[in-house]
Protein backbone atom coordinates (compact mmCIF):
# COMPACT_ATOMS: atom_id res chain seq x y z
CA UNK A 1 0.00 0.00 0.00
CA UNK A 2 2.85 2.32 0.77
CA UNK A 3 4.42 1.69 -2.60
CA UNK A 4 1.04 2.15 -4.29
CA UNK A 5 0.63 5.61 -2.77
CA UNK A 6 4.12 6.74 -3.69
CA UNK A 7 4.03 5.37 -7.24
CA UNK A 8 0.86 7.29 -8.11
CA UNK A 9 2.24 10.65 -7.15
CA UNK A 10 2.32 13.62 -9.50
CA UNK A 11 4.96 16.25 -8.78
CA UNK A 12 3.41 19.74 -8.66
CA UNK A 13 6.74 21.46 -8.13
CA UNK A 14 9.93 20.61 -6.28
CA UNK A 15 8.20 20.62 -2.90
CA UNK A 16 4.65 19.59 -3.76
CA UNK A 17 3.59 16.00 -4.35
CA UNK A 18 0.03 15.10 -5.19
CA UNK A 19 -1.79 11.79 -5.29
CA UNK A 20 -4.78 12.37 -7.58
CA UNK A 21 -8.34 11.65 -6.51
CA UNK A 22 -8.48 8.94 -9.17
CA UNK A 23 -5.70 6.97 -7.49
CA UNK A 24 -8.28 4.98 -5.59
CA UNK A 25 -11.97 4.61 -6.34
CA UNK A 26 -12.96 5.54 -2.80
CA UNK A 27 -10.94 8.77 -2.63
CA UNK A 28 -13.12 11.89 -2.73
CA UNK A 29 -10.32 14.49 -2.97
CA UNK A 30 -6.60 14.48 -3.88
CA UNK A 31 -3.88 14.04 -1.25
CA UNK A 32 -1.14 16.67 -1.34
CA UNK A 33 2.15 16.41 0.53
CA UNK A 34 4.73 19.15 1.03
CA UNK A 35 8.23 17.71 1.16
CA UNK A 36 11.63 17.92 -0.48
CA UNK A 37 13.12 14.84 -2.06
CA UNK A 38 14.73 13.49 1.10
CA UNK A 39 11.67 14.04 3.28
CA UNK A 40 9.53 12.54 0.52
CA UNK A 41 11.68 9.41 0.57
CA UNK A 42 11.22 9.14 4.33
CA UNK A 43 7.48 9.78 4.11
CA UNK A 44 7.13 7.17 1.38
CA UNK A 45 8.91 4.64 3.54
CA UNK A 46 6.12 4.03 6.01
CA UNK A 47 2.33 3.75 5.87
CA UNK A 48 1.60 7.48 6.08
CA UNK A 49 0.67 7.97 2.40
CA UNK A 50 -1.81 5.10 2.55
CA UNK A 51 -3.23 6.61 5.72
CA UNK A 52 -3.56 10.03 4.07
CA UNK A 53 -5.36 8.42 1.13
CA UNK A 54 -7.72 6.75 3.59
CA UNK A 55 -8.50 10.18 5.08
CA UNK A 56 -9.42 11.36 1.57
CA UNK A 57 -12.36 8.91 1.67
CA UNK A 58 -14.10 10.48 4.68
CA UNK A 59 -17.62 11.77 3.94
CA UNK A 60 -17.79 15.50 3.32
CA UNK A 61 -14.03 15.94 2.91
CA UNK A 62 -13.31 18.96 0.74
CA UNK A 63 -10.44 20.56 -1.16
CA UNK A 64 -7.39 18.38 -0.62
CA UNK A 65 -6.13 16.39 2.31
CA UNK A 66 -2.65 17.62 3.20
CA UNK A 67 0.50 16.02 4.49
CA UNK A 68 2.96 18.28 6.25
CA UNK A 69 6.75 17.87 5.73
CA UNK A 70 7.08 16.08 9.08
CA UNK A 71 4.39 13.51 8.25
CA UNK A 72 4.77 9.95 9.48
CA UNK A 73 2.48 7.03 10.07
CA UNK A 74 0.10 7.18 12.98
CA UNK A 75 -3.18 5.34 13.48
CA UNK A 76 -6.13 6.27 11.28
CA UNK A 77 -4.87 9.72 10.28
CA UNK A 78 -1.14 10.08 9.68
CA UNK A 79 0.66 12.37 12.10
CA UNK A 80 1.12 15.62 10.19
CA UNK A 81 -2.21 15.24 8.38
CA UNK A 82 -4.78 17.97 7.73
CA UNK A 83 -8.30 17.41 6.42
CA UNK A 84 -11.37 19.64 6.30
CA UNK A 85 -14.93 18.35 6.24
CA UNK A 86 -18.01 20.40 5.45
CA UNK A 87 -19.77 21.14 8.71
CA UNK A 88 -23.24 20.75 7.24
CA UNK A 89 -22.85 17.42 5.48
CA UNK A 90 -19.45 16.11 6.53
CA UNK A 91 -18.15 14.12 9.47
CA UNK A 92 -16.05 14.65 12.55
CA UNK A 93 -13.57 11.89 13.41
CA UNK A 94 -12.02 11.45 16.87
CA UNK A 95 -9.19 9.53 15.21
CA UNK A 96 -8.53 12.65 13.14
CA UNK A 97 -7.73 14.51 16.32
CA UNK A 98 -6.00 11.70 18.14
CA UNK A 99 -5.93 10.46 21.70
CA UNK A 100 -3.91 13.40 22.98
CA UNK A 101 -6.54 16.06 22.29
CA UNK A 102 -4.99 19.54 22.09
CA UNK A 103 -1.49 18.28 22.47
CA UNK A 104 0.37 21.50 21.87
CA UNK A 105 3.29 23.76 22.56
CA UNK A 106 3.78 26.99 24.46
CA UNK A 107 6.84 29.21 24.43
CA UNK A 108 7.87 31.37 27.38
CA UNK A 109 10.57 33.98 26.97
CA UNK A 110 12.83 35.50 29.62
CA UNK A 111 14.45 38.90 29.96
CA UNK A 112 17.61 37.06 30.96
CA UNK A 113 20.44 36.30 28.58
CA UNK A 114 21.22 32.61 28.46
CA UNK A 115 25.00 32.74 28.42
CA UNK A 116 25.59 34.33 31.86
CA UNK A 117 23.34 31.71 33.52
CA UNK A 118 24.50 28.76 31.43
CA UNK A 119 26.28 27.03 34.31
CA UNK A 120 23.12 27.11 36.39
CA UNK A 121 21.00 25.33 33.76
CA UNK A 122 21.65 21.76 35.01
CA UNK A 123 20.48 22.77 38.49
CA UNK A 124 17.53 24.59 36.94
CA UNK A 125 16.58 21.48 34.97
CA UNK A 126 16.77 19.46 38.18
CA UNK A 127 14.53 21.98 39.91
CA UNK A 128 12.03 21.89 37.03
CA UNK A 129 11.94 18.09 37.14
CA UNK A 130 11.10 18.27 40.86
CA UNK A 131 8.43 20.89 40.32
CA UNK A 132 6.68 19.36 37.33
CA UNK A 133 5.84 15.67 37.59
CA UNK A 134 5.90 13.61 34.43
CA UNK A 135 3.16 11.32 35.64
CA UNK A 136 0.87 11.68 38.62
CA UNK A 137 3.61 12.08 41.17
CA UNK A 138 3.40 13.95 44.37
CA UNK A 139 4.50 17.52 43.72
CA UNK A 140 3.49 20.12 41.23
CA UNK A 141 0.15 18.87 40.05
CA UNK A 142 -3.11 20.61 40.85
CA UNK A 143 -5.49 18.25 42.61
CA UNK A 144 -9.06 18.72 41.46
CA UNK A 145 -12.33 17.84 43.12
CA UNK A 146 -15.24 16.79 40.92
CA UNK A 147 -16.65 20.31 40.58
CA UNK A 148 -13.20 21.71 39.87
CA UNK A 149 -12.71 19.23 37.02
CA UNK A 150 -15.94 20.45 35.43
CA UNK A 151 -14.88 24.07 35.83
CA UNK A 152 -11.57 23.36 34.10
CA UNK A 153 -13.44 21.57 31.30
CA UNK A 154 -15.76 24.54 30.81
CA UNK A 155 -13.45 27.45 31.55
CA UNK A 156 -9.99 26.19 30.61
CA UNK A 157 -7.33 28.79 31.41
CA UNK A 158 -9.97 31.25 32.65
CA UNK A 159 -10.49 29.03 35.70
CA UNK A 160 -6.75 29.28 36.37
CA UNK A 161 -6.84 33.06 36.01
CA UNK A 162 -9.27 33.08 38.93
CA UNK A 163 -7.03 30.69 40.89
CA UNK A 164 -3.93 32.84 40.33
CA UNK A 165 -2.17 30.40 37.99
CA UNK A 166 -2.50 32.62 34.92
CA UNK A 167 -2.43 36.26 33.93
CA UNK A 168 -4.79 38.11 31.62
CA UNK A 169 -1.83 38.62 29.31
CA UNK A 170 -1.33 34.82 29.13
CA UNK A 171 -4.87 34.34 27.92
CA UNK A 172 -4.45 36.98 25.21
CA UNK A 173 -1.69 34.93 23.64
CA UNK A 174 -3.18 31.47 24.02
CA UNK A 175 -4.99 30.00 21.03
CA UNK A 176 -8.73 30.61 21.42
CA UNK A 177 -7.94 32.49 24.63
CA UNK A 178 -7.33 29.14 26.34
CA UNK A 179 -11.01 28.26 26.32
CA UNK A 180 -13.40 26.70 23.83
CA UNK A 181 -16.89 27.95 24.55
CA UNK A 182 -18.44 24.88 22.89
CA UNK A 183 -17.11 22.63 25.66
CA UNK A 184 -19.69 20.37 27.29
CA UNK A 185 -18.47 18.53 30.39
CA UNK A 186 -21.68 16.52 30.33
CA UNK A 187 -20.32 14.75 27.25
CA UNK A 188 -17.11 13.76 29.08
CA UNK A 189 -17.39 10.37 30.77
CA UNK A 190 -16.82 9.77 34.47
CA UNK A 191 -13.89 7.59 33.45
CA UNK A 192 -12.26 10.43 31.55
CA UNK A 193 -12.72 12.79 34.48
CA UNK A 194 -11.26 10.16 36.80
CA UNK A 195 -8.17 9.87 34.63
CA UNK A 196 -7.72 13.64 34.66
CA UNK A 197 -8.40 14.25 38.33
CA UNK A 198 -4.75 14.32 39.44
CA UNK A 199 -3.03 15.07 36.13
CA UNK A 200 -3.35 18.84 35.79
CA UNK A 201 0.19 20.18 35.72
CA UNK A 202 1.87 16.97 34.57
CA UNK A 203 3.92 16.39 31.42
CA UNK A 204 3.11 12.77 30.61
CA UNK A 205 5.41 10.45 28.72
CA UNK A 206 6.45 9.85 25.13
CA UNK A 207 7.78 12.89 23.32
CA UNK A 208 6.44 15.41 25.85
CA UNK A 209 8.91 17.71 27.51
CA UNK A 210 9.82 21.00 29.13
CA UNK A 211 12.93 22.38 27.46
CA UNK A 212 15.18 25.28 28.46
CA UNK A 213 16.49 27.00 25.36
CA UNK A 214 18.42 30.00 24.08
CA UNK A 215 17.45 32.10 21.07
CA UNK A 216 20.37 31.31 18.81
CA UNK A 217 19.55 32.99 15.51
CA UNK A 218 17.06 35.55 14.28
CA UNK A 219 15.92 35.35 10.65
CA UNK A 220 13.42 38.22 10.69
CA UNK A 221 14.36 40.95 13.13
CA UNK A 222 11.13 42.89 12.78
CA UNK A 223 8.87 39.93 13.44
CA UNK A 224 11.14 38.66 16.21
CA UNK A 225 10.88 42.03 17.94
CA UNK A 226 7.10 41.90 17.64
CA UNK A 227 7.15 38.49 19.35
CA UNK A 228 9.58 39.73 22.02
CA UNK A 229 12.44 37.48 20.92
CA UNK A 230 16.00 38.77 21.40
CA UNK A 231 19.19 37.05 20.26
CA UNK A 232 20.69 35.08 23.14
CA UNK A 233 17.75 35.30 25.50
CA UNK A 234 16.63 32.42 27.67
CA UNK A 235 13.39 30.61 26.74
CA UNK A 236 11.29 27.64 27.85
CA UNK A 237 9.25 25.45 25.52
CA UNK A 238 6.48 23.27 26.99
CA UNK A 239 5.07 20.36 25.00
CA UNK A 240 2.19 18.31 26.41
CA UNK A 241 -1.56 17.81 26.08
CA UNK A 242 -4.75 16.67 27.76
CA UNK A 243 -3.19 13.61 29.43
CA UNK A 244 -5.41 10.68 30.41
CA UNK A 245 -8.57 12.74 30.30
CA UNK A 246 -8.16 13.44 26.59
CA UNK A 247 -7.03 9.89 25.91
CA UNK A 248 -10.20 8.53 27.47
CA UNK A 249 -12.43 10.99 25.56
CA UNK A 250 -10.97 9.69 22.31
CA UNK A 251 -11.28 6.07 23.42
CA UNK A 252 -14.93 6.61 24.39
CA UNK A 253 -15.91 8.33 21.14
CA UNK A 254 -14.04 6.05 18.76
CA UNK A 255 -16.13 3.26 20.27
CA UNK A 256 -19.35 5.29 20.14
CA UNK A 257 -18.84 6.24 16.51
CA UNK A 258 -17.68 2.76 15.57
CA UNK A 259 -21.07 1.54 16.72
CA UNK A 260 -22.97 4.40 15.04
CA UNK A 261 -21.40 4.32 11.58
CA UNK A 262 -23.62 1.56 10.24
CA UNK A 263 -26.67 3.64 11.12
CA UNK A 264 -25.30 6.50 9.02
CA UNK A 265 -24.26 4.21 6.16
CA UNK A 266 -20.58 5.10 6.54
CA UNK A 267 -18.06 2.54 5.32
CA UNK A 268 -14.37 3.21 5.93
CA UNK A 269 -11.06 1.62 4.93
CA UNK A 270 -9.77 1.84 8.51
CA UNK A 271 -11.89 1.32 11.61
CA UNK A 272 -9.80 3.86 13.57
CA UNK A 273 -11.21 6.58 11.29
CA UNK A 274 -14.58 6.00 12.98
CA UNK A 275 -16.68 9.10 12.49
CA UNK A 276 -20.19 10.49 12.52
CA UNK A 277 -21.84 13.40 10.77
CA UNK A 278 -20.78 16.58 12.51
CA UNK A 279 -24.40 17.67 12.91
CA UNK A 280 -25.50 14.28 14.31
CA UNK A 281 -26.02 13.74 18.05
CA UNK A 282 -22.83 11.66 18.18
CA UNK A 283 -20.88 14.31 16.28
CA UNK A 284 -22.08 17.10 18.53
CA UNK A 285 -21.42 15.08 21.68
CA UNK A 286 -17.89 14.34 20.56
CA UNK A 287 -17.27 17.97 19.66
CA UNK A 288 -18.49 19.09 23.09
CA UNK A 289 -16.25 16.53 24.78
CA UNK A 290 -13.27 17.33 22.55
CA UNK A 291 -13.60 21.04 23.33
CA UNK A 292 -13.73 20.22 27.04
CA UNK A 293 -10.60 18.07 26.76
CA UNK A 294 -8.93 20.87 24.82
CA UNK A 295 -9.69 23.25 27.67
CA UNK A 296 -8.12 20.74 30.06
CA UNK A 297 -4.98 20.64 27.89
CA UNK A 298 -4.64 24.43 27.81
CA UNK A 299 -5.06 24.46 31.57
CA UNK A 300 -2.45 21.73 31.89
CA UNK A 301 0.14 23.72 29.97
CA UNK A 302 -0.82 26.82 31.96
CA UNK A 303 -0.24 25.09 35.32
CA UNK A 304 3.11 23.81 34.05
CA UNK A 305 4.02 27.34 32.93
CA UNK A 306 3.13 28.56 36.41
CA UNK A 307 5.46 25.96 37.96
CA UNK A 308 8.20 26.96 35.54
CA UNK A 309 7.73 30.59 36.52
CA UNK A 310 7.94 29.68 40.22
CA UNK A 311 11.17 27.79 39.59
CA UNK A 312 12.64 30.70 37.62
CA UNK A 313 11.77 33.11 40.42
CA UNK A 314 13.41 30.83 42.98
CA UNK A 315 16.52 30.73 40.82
CA UNK A 316 16.76 34.21 39.40
CA UNK A 317 14.52 36.38 41.58
CA UNK A 318 12.59 39.19 39.92
CA UNK A 319 14.79 39.04 36.84
CA UNK A 320 13.50 35.52 36.19
CA UNK A 321 10.16 36.77 34.88
CA UNK A 322 8.83 34.74 31.96
CA UNK A 323 6.43 36.11 29.37
CA UNK A 324 4.23 33.82 27.30
CA UNK A 325 4.82 34.28 23.57
CA UNK A 326 2.02 31.96 22.46
CA UNK A 327 0.34 28.63 23.10
CA UNK A 328 -0.75 26.65 20.07
CA UNK A 329 -2.52 23.30 19.64
CA UNK A 330 -1.52 20.61 17.18
CA UNK A 331 -4.15 17.88 17.71
CA UNK A 332 -7.54 19.43 17.17
CA UNK A 333 -10.71 19.71 15.11
CA UNK A 334 -11.85 23.31 14.74
CA UNK A 335 -14.84 24.97 13.17
CA UNK A 336 -13.44 27.49 10.72
CA UNK A 337 -14.79 29.49 7.79
CA UNK A 338 -12.81 28.97 4.61
CA UNK A 339 -13.89 30.73 1.42
CA UNK A 340 -17.30 31.37 2.90
CA UNK A 341 -17.94 27.78 3.93
CA UNK A 342 -17.99 26.45 7.48
CA UNK A 343 -15.57 23.53 7.78
CA UNK A 344 -14.45 21.16 10.50
CA UNK A 345 -10.68 21.31 10.05
CA UNK A 346 -8.93 18.28 11.52
CA UNK A 347 -5.27 18.82 12.33
CA UNK A 348 -3.53 15.71 13.58
CA UNK A 349 0.03 16.57 14.47
CA UNK A 350 -0.35 19.84 12.59
CA UNK A 351 -0.41 23.42 13.83
CA UNK A 352 -2.78 26.17 12.86
CA UNK A 353 -0.77 28.87 11.08
CA UNK A 354 -2.97 31.87 10.43
CA UNK A 355 -1.52 35.00 8.90
CA UNK A 356 -1.77 38.65 9.90
CA UNK A 357 -5.11 39.20 8.15
CA UNK A 358 -6.99 36.38 9.86
CA UNK A 359 -9.49 37.53 12.48
CA UNK A 360 -8.48 34.72 14.85
CA UNK A 361 -4.87 35.84 14.94
CA UNK A 362 -4.43 37.48 18.38
CA UNK A 363 -4.66 41.29 18.21
CA UNK A 364 -1.12 41.60 19.52
CA UNK A 365 0.20 39.70 16.49
CA UNK A 366 -2.04 41.14 13.76
CA UNK A 367 0.94 42.88 12.18
CA UNK A 368 3.02 39.70 11.87
CA UNK A 369 0.82 36.59 11.99
CA UNK A 370 0.14 33.91 14.54
CA UNK A 371 3.25 32.35 16.10
CA UNK A 372 4.00 28.77 15.05
CA UNK A 373 6.41 26.56 16.96
CA UNK A 374 8.25 23.63 15.43
CA UNK A 375 10.19 21.80 18.13
CA UNK A 376 13.08 19.73 16.94
CA UNK A 377 13.96 16.44 18.49
CA UNK A 378 15.52 16.41 21.93
CA UNK A 379 18.99 17.81 21.35
CA UNK A 380 18.32 19.65 18.10
CA UNK A 381 17.08 23.16 17.42
CA UNK A 382 13.50 24.34 17.63
CA UNK A 383 12.02 27.05 15.43
CA UNK A 384 9.66 29.96 15.82
CA UNK A 385 7.74 30.92 12.70
CA UNK A 386 4.63 32.97 11.98
CA UNK A 387 1.61 31.99 9.93
CA UNK A 388 1.00 33.44 6.50
CA UNK A 389 -2.17 34.57 4.80
CA UNK A 390 -1.36 32.42 1.79
CA UNK A 391 -1.34 29.28 3.98
CA UNK A 392 -5.13 29.42 3.97
CA UNK A 393 -5.06 28.42 0.32
CA UNK A 394 -2.19 25.97 0.73
CA UNK A 395 -3.22 23.94 3.75
CA UNK A 396 -6.34 25.44 5.33
CA UNK A 397 -3.91 27.62 7.26
CA UNK A 398 -1.77 24.83 8.72
CA UNK A 399 1.89 24.07 9.22
CA UNK A 400 3.77 21.17 10.70
CA UNK A 401 4.15 20.47 14.41
CA UNK A 402 7.66 19.14 14.81
CA UNK A 403 10.51 17.32 13.15
CA UNK A 404 8.45 14.14 12.80
CA UNK A 405 9.64 10.67 13.66
CA UNK A 406 11.74 8.83 11.12
CA UNK A 407 12.55 5.72 13.13
CA UNK A 408 10.43 3.46 15.34
CA UNK A 409 10.94 3.61 19.07
CA UNK A 410 12.07 -0.01 19.05
CA UNK A 411 14.66 0.66 16.34
CA UNK A 412 15.88 3.77 18.16
CA UNK A 413 16.49 1.74 21.33
CA UNK A 414 18.36 -0.88 19.32
CA UNK A 415 20.47 1.79 17.61
CA UNK A 416 21.82 3.40 20.75
CA UNK A 417 21.20 2.71 24.44
CA UNK A 418 19.69 5.45 26.53
CA UNK A 419 22.74 6.01 28.72
CA UNK A 420 24.81 6.76 25.61
CA UNK A 421 22.16 9.19 24.35
CA UNK A 422 22.26 10.89 27.73
CA UNK A 423 26.05 11.07 27.72
CA UNK A 424 26.14 12.50 24.19
CA UNK A 425 23.56 15.15 25.02
CA UNK A 426 25.43 16.14 28.17
CA UNK A 427 28.70 16.25 26.24
CA UNK A 428 27.04 18.81 23.99
CA UNK A 429 26.11 20.87 27.01
CA UNK A 430 22.46 19.80 27.17
CA UNK A 431 21.31 18.90 30.70
CA UNK A 432 18.86 15.99 30.72
CA UNK A 433 16.30 14.86 33.24
CA UNK A 434 14.46 11.71 32.22
CA UNK A 435 13.19 8.98 34.53
CA UNK A 436 14.09 6.20 32.13
CA UNK A 437 17.10 5.60 29.89
CA UNK A 438 14.91 3.42 27.66
CA UNK A 439 12.50 6.28 26.99
CA UNK A 440 15.42 8.61 26.45
CA UNK A 441 16.72 6.30 23.73
CA UNK A 442 13.31 6.27 22.05
CA UNK A 443 13.42 10.05 21.71
CA UNK A 444 17.03 10.31 20.57
CA UNK A 445 17.74 12.94 17.91
CA UNK A 446 18.53 10.34 15.24
CA UNK A 447 14.99 8.93 15.57
CA UNK A 448 13.59 12.11 14.02
CA UNK A 449 13.66 13.79 10.65
CA UNK A 450 16.02 16.71 10.10
CA UNK A 451 14.19 19.68 11.60
CA UNK A 452 16.25 22.13 9.51
CA UNK A 453 14.98 20.47 6.35
CA UNK A 454 11.39 20.34 7.62
CA UNK A 455 11.39 24.03 8.52
CA UNK A 456 13.03 24.92 5.22
CA UNK A 457 10.15 23.28 3.32
CA UNK A 458 7.54 24.99 5.51
CA UNK A 459 9.20 28.35 4.85
CA UNK A 460 9.78 27.90 1.12
CA UNK A 461 6.28 26.59 0.44
CA UNK A 462 4.86 29.50 2.41
CA UNK A 463 2.97 27.55 5.07
CA UNK A 464 4.69 29.72 7.68
CA UNK A 465 7.57 32.16 7.72
CA UNK A 466 10.79 31.51 9.64
CA UNK A 467 11.56 33.92 12.49
CA UNK A 468 14.05 32.43 14.96
CA UNK A 469 16.07 29.36 15.83
CA UNK A 470 16.28 28.16 19.43
CA UNK A 471 19.07 25.98 20.79
CA UNK A 472 18.39 23.47 23.61
CA UNK A 473 20.26 23.91 26.91
CA UNK A 474 18.39 21.45 29.08
CA UNK A 475 15.39 19.18 28.88
CA UNK A 476 12.96 17.61 31.31
CA UNK A 477 11.48 14.64 29.50
CA UNK A 478 8.31 12.96 30.55
Amino acid sequence: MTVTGASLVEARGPLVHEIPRTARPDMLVPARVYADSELWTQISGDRSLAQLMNVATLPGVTGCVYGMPDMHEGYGFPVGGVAAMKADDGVVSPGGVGYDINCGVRLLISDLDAEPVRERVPALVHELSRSIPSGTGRGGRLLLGGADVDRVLVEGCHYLLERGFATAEDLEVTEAGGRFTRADPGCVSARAKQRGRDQLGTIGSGNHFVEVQAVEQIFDAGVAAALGLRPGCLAVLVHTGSRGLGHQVCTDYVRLMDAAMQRYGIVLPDRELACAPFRSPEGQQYFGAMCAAANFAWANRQVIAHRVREAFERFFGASGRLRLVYDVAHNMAKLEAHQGELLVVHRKGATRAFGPAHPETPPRYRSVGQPVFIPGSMGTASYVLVGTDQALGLSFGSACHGAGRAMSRHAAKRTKPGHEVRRELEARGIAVSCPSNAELAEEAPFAYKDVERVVDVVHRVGLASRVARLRPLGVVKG
Partner: protein
Amino acid sequence: MSGYSELLAHTAEVMLRLRATTLADLLAEAGRALGRLELGEPVPPAAGEPRLIEVQSPDREALLVDWLNELVYLAETERWVPVEFEMVTANDTTARAWARGVVTDEAPARVKAATFHGLKVVAGPQGFEADVVLDV
Protein backbone atom coordinates in the same frame (compact mmCIF):
# COMPACT_ATOMS: atom_id res chain seq x y z
CA MET B 1 1.67 -22.41 23.46
CA SER B 2 0.23 -20.16 26.14
CA GLY B 3 0.97 -16.98 24.28
CA TYR B 4 3.62 -15.08 22.37
CA SER B 5 4.02 -11.44 21.47
CA GLU B 6 6.41 -9.36 19.40
CA LEU B 7 6.75 -5.73 18.36
CA LEU B 8 6.26 -4.96 14.66
CA ALA B 9 7.74 -1.92 12.93
CA HIS B 10 5.76 1.27 13.38
CA THR B 11 7.28 4.74 13.03
CA ALA B 12 5.60 6.34 16.01
CA GLU B 13 3.50 3.93 18.01
CA VAL B 14 3.76 0.37 19.31
CA MET B 15 2.38 -2.35 17.05
CA LEU B 16 1.90 -5.63 18.86
CA ARG B 17 1.59 -9.01 17.18
CA LEU B 18 0.09 -11.62 19.45
CA ARG B 19 -0.18 -15.37 18.95
CA ALA B 20 -1.85 -17.97 21.18
CA THR B 21 -3.63 -21.28 20.98
CA THR B 22 -6.90 -19.95 22.31
CA LEU B 23 -8.62 -16.60 22.47
CA ALA B 24 -8.31 -16.73 26.26
CA ASP B 25 -4.54 -17.16 25.98
CA LEU B 26 -4.39 -14.37 23.40
CA LEU B 27 -6.11 -11.92 25.73
CA ALA B 28 -3.91 -12.98 28.63
CA GLU B 29 -0.81 -12.48 26.49
CA ALA B 30 -2.08 -9.07 25.40
CA GLY B 31 -2.39 -8.14 29.07
CA ARG B 32 1.11 -9.37 29.86
CA ALA B 33 2.58 -7.50 26.87
CA LEU B 34 0.87 -4.32 28.04
CA GLY B 35 2.27 -4.89 31.53
CA ARG B 36 5.78 -5.16 30.11
CA LEU B 37 5.31 -1.87 28.25
CA GLU B 38 3.92 -0.08 31.27
CA LEU B 39 6.40 -1.40 33.82
CA GLY B 40 9.49 -2.12 31.75
CA GLU B 41 11.42 -5.35 32.04
CA PRO B 42 11.94 -7.33 34.14
CA VAL B 43 8.36 -7.04 35.32
CA PRO B 44 8.13 -7.09 39.12
CA PRO B 45 6.24 -10.03 40.62
CA ALA B 46 2.50 -9.67 41.06
CA ALA B 47 1.29 -9.19 44.59
CA GLY B 48 -1.96 -8.91 46.44
CA GLU B 49 -5.36 -10.45 45.99
CA PRO B 50 -6.69 -11.22 42.50
CA ARG B 51 -9.32 -8.90 41.08
CA LEU B 52 -12.04 -9.68 38.59
CA ILE B 53 -11.85 -7.76 35.29
CA GLU B 54 -14.72 -7.97 32.83
CA VAL B 55 -15.20 -6.44 29.39
CA GLN B 56 -18.04 -6.79 26.89
CA SER B 57 -17.80 -5.75 23.25
CA PRO B 58 -19.72 -6.15 19.99
CA ASP B 59 -17.11 -8.29 18.23
CA ARG B 60 -13.80 -10.05 18.71
CA GLU B 61 -11.61 -7.21 17.41
CA ALA B 62 -13.35 -4.62 19.57
CA LEU B 63 -13.00 -7.02 22.51
CA LEU B 64 -9.20 -6.99 22.23
CA VAL B 65 -9.16 -3.17 22.06
CA ASP B 66 -11.62 -2.79 24.93
CA TRP B 67 -9.73 -5.34 27.03
CA LEU B 68 -6.46 -3.46 26.63
CA ASN B 69 -8.12 -0.11 27.24
CA GLU B 70 -9.64 -1.43 30.44
CA LEU B 71 -6.17 -2.44 31.62
CA VAL B 72 -4.78 0.99 30.65
CA TYR B 73 -7.56 2.63 32.65
CA LEU B 74 -6.87 0.50 35.74
CA ALA B 75 -3.15 1.18 35.55
CA GLU B 76 -3.60 4.92 35.27
CA THR B 77 -6.38 5.49 37.77
CA GLU B 78 -5.50 2.86 40.40
CA ARG B 79 -1.75 2.61 39.89
CA TRP B 80 -2.26 -1.11 39.50
CA VAL B 81 -0.83 -2.90 36.48
CA PRO B 82 -2.28 -6.39 35.98
CA VAL B 83 0.39 -8.88 34.90
CA GLU B 84 -1.05 -12.33 35.73
CA PHE B 85 -4.34 -13.48 34.28
CA GLU B 86 -6.58 -16.44 34.91
CA MET B 87 -9.19 -16.25 32.19
CA VAL B 88 -12.67 -17.27 33.25
CA THR B 89 -14.53 -16.43 30.05
CA ALA B 90 -13.22 -15.52 26.63
CA ASN B 91 -15.49 -15.50 23.61
CA ASP B 92 -16.08 -13.06 20.77
CA THR B 93 -17.98 -10.60 22.95
CA THR B 94 -16.90 -11.19 26.55
CA ALA B 95 -13.63 -11.36 28.44
CA ARG B 96 -13.66 -12.11 32.14
CA ALA B 97 -10.52 -12.82 34.14
CA TRP B 98 -9.05 -12.87 37.59
CA ALA B 99 -5.92 -10.79 37.55
CA ARG B 100 -3.07 -10.10 39.90
CA GLY B 101 -0.91 -7.07 39.43
CA VAL B 102 1.83 -4.73 40.46
CA VAL B 103 1.09 -1.60 42.47
CA THR B 104 3.17 1.38 41.32
CA ASP B 105 4.19 4.60 43.08
CA GLU B 106 3.31 6.66 40.05
CA ALA B 107 0.60 5.95 37.53
CA PRO B 108 2.10 4.45 34.39
CA ALA B 109 1.64 6.96 31.59
CA ARG B 110 3.36 5.22 28.72
CA VAL B 111 0.36 3.76 26.87
CA LYS B 112 -2.44 6.17 26.04
CA ALA B 113 -4.82 3.74 24.38
CA ALA B 114 -5.28 0.69 22.17
CA THR B 115 -6.54 1.64 18.71
CA PHE B 116 -8.57 0.07 15.91
CA HIS B 117 -5.93 0.95 13.31
CA GLY B 118 -4.74 -2.12 11.40
CA LEU B 119 -6.54 -4.23 13.96
CA LYS B 120 -7.03 -7.89 13.25
CA VAL B 121 -7.83 -10.96 15.31
CA VAL B 122 -7.89 -14.10 13.18
CA ALA B 123 -8.42 -17.73 14.04
CA GLY B 124 -6.49 -20.39 12.14
CA PRO B 125 -5.43 -23.98 12.46
CA GLN B 126 -2.57 -23.01 14.79
CA GLY B 127 -4.74 -20.87 17.00
CA PHE B 128 -5.24 -17.12 17.15
CA GLU B 129 -3.15 -14.27 15.78
CA ALA B 130 -3.77 -10.58 16.38
CA ASP B 131 -2.24 -7.24 15.44
CA VAL B 132 -3.04 -4.15 17.49
CA VAL B 133 -1.51 -0.65 17.53
CA LEU B 134 -1.08 1.10 20.85
CA ASP B 135 -0.82 4.88 21.04
CA VAL B 136 2.27 5.68 23.12
